[in-house]
């Protein structure tokens, strides 16, 4: 499902956080929003998920989201927050089952088809053995998989991920991103994520969008966005951007070391 946003603006407590953002994420593609701390990446993602009141228009599959009911929105867009709440005592199976909420009426109970979706999701994420384990007893990587599992159980064609790899070591970061990429191909998901690690951002996304102070600075394929000039100007970072086997590598450089181009 195509995701299209035009002139999206969010103000929180009177302060504009995101202004005039337009973006396109065609069905089956991966768009990653990058930008320095406080640029408004998470807020933009929440606006796309319909979780904050926002100006402008967001279209899903060509349909405007204005007037869409919460439940209908949640059937189209699944959202994985940066720091999800882990309810004490809840099992992994029960947690992933929460993802079926948008498919149930307010007073309805889960049916066999909902349980089948959850079983399939756990299988796909290699979490079947953890089904009855309390979520809080899982390691960071396993827990993050379970959280992606909850979003996946929503069976929404658009998946929004807010800093999905922040708390993970590099191996688990790769595992998770490979998993998301595989799911994207298998289910033709539209993925929009935010990410701090620019090298990983460049490796996995089809397109990047660089956000600074709530506005789009540049958007395009990774090699157009991840330039030394952009990173110096908007991140205030001294970096070298290397090309390694066709992929971009962003390497921080200590002050005093001459930056080569």
């Amino acid at each position, binding site marked *: 499902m195509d995701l299209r946003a035009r002139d999206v603006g969010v103000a929180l407590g009177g302060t504009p956080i995101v202004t005039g953002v337009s973006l396109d994420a065609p069905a089956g593609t991966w768009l990653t929003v990058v930008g320095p701390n406080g640029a408004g990446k998470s807020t933009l993602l*929440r606006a796309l*998920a*319909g*979780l904050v009141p926002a100006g402008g228009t967001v279209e899903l599959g060509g349909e405007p989201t204005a007037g869409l009911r*919460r*439940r*209908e*929105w*949640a*059937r189209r*867009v*699944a*959202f994985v*927050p940066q720091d*999800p*709440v882990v*309810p*004490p*005592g*809840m*099992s992994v*199976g*029960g947690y992933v*089952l*929460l*993802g079926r*909420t*948008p498919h*149930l009426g*307010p*007073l309805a*109970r*889960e049916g066999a088809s909902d*349980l089948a979706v*959850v*079983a399939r999701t*756990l299988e796909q994420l290699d979490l079947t053995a953890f*089904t009855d384990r309390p979520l809080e007893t899982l390691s960071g990587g396993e827990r993050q998989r379970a959280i992606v599992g909850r979003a996946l159980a*929503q069976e929404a064609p658009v998946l929004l991920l807010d800093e999905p790899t922040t708390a993970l070591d590099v191996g688990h970061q790769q595992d998770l991103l490979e998993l998301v990429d595989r799911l994207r191909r298998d289910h033709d998901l539209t993925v929009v994520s935010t990410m701090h690690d620019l090298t990983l951002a460049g490796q996995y996304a089809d397109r990047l969008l660089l956000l600074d102070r709530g506005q789009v600075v540049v958007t395009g394929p990774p090699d157009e966005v991840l330039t030394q000039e952009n990173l110096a100007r908007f991140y205030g970072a001294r970096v070298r951007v290397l090309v390694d086997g066709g992929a971009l590598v962003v390497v921080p450089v200590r002050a005093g070391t001459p930056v080569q181009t």
Partner: protein
Amino acid sequence: MIRVERLGVGWLAAGVAAVLVAVVAGVAAGPVSLAPFDVGRELLDHLPFVEVRSGLTDRQAAIVWDLRLPRVVLGLLVGAMLAVTGSSYQGVFRNPLADPYLLGVAAGAGFGATLAIVSGASTDVGFVEPLPLAAFAGALAAVGLTYLLGAAGDRFRSPAALILAGVAVASFLTALQTYVQQRESETLRDVYAWLLGRLSTAHWDEVRLLLPYAVITAVVLLAHRRALDVLSVGDEEAAALGLHPKRTRLVVVIVASLGAAAAVSVSGLIIFVGIIVPHTIRLVAGTSYRVILPLSLLLGGAFLALVDLLARTVVAPAELPLGVVTAFFGAPFFAVVLRSSRRATA
């Protein structure tokens, strides 16, 4: 195999058994002691299509039906309400210390009851008893005030704002209540007796007063048990899952406050039931509200009916205030449950 966490048959049976034990024990024990077996048969006899001879005399049957059963039933209803509304408050506010009195219910009921007592209206004036009505009105007015205050100037009212508003309203009404009570010191004893909670004046009238609110509250809260599980991931994530967190919280808070106010109006302030029962269930039976809410109704009711039995028998013919007994037995019991479950999960 994925299963939905819900109330298992074992726990359901345990809850029903606890209620039955509380009913039979509560009816059998007292100044005129009756054989539990006879009491059981007497109660069975009144079920439709069941005819058994209880062997109780007419006088004994009158004790059962006019004195003890209404009191036991009222205990069940009040306990069930306090426990189920406590669980619900804990769920919508995601706060383990939330209780049915959180939003000023207790202070409002106390103020209403105190006004009724000092104005002398507490003595019977015909067809309704004014004391529970005054307490009920006070409780609802307090919750309404809390809600207006908590929502004022905040279109996206947060749970914290509502709780703080409840603290302010409760303090204010408690101050008013204490002032009125001190000015009319000859009624101090009556006011305290009410505040500490009792079921001793229970008749079927009180049962009839509470029953409709109890049924509405139980049905609406039970209908929200899955929504409360969804809310446990926080407002934003619940919204991302298609729920309206604020709307859900509003409905649950209003209905739970109604149930708590109705319970308090006939029983006085009985502390601790709304916290101890839900948390005991969480520790032993499960953390899903599909388990907690129905089991709170059953075990909360049985717990309070049994506590009332203790309250009226240990120092007979005098009676202990219920609130004292719930805390005296409840606190150590809860400490034991807390410790043993820590060990089990460690």
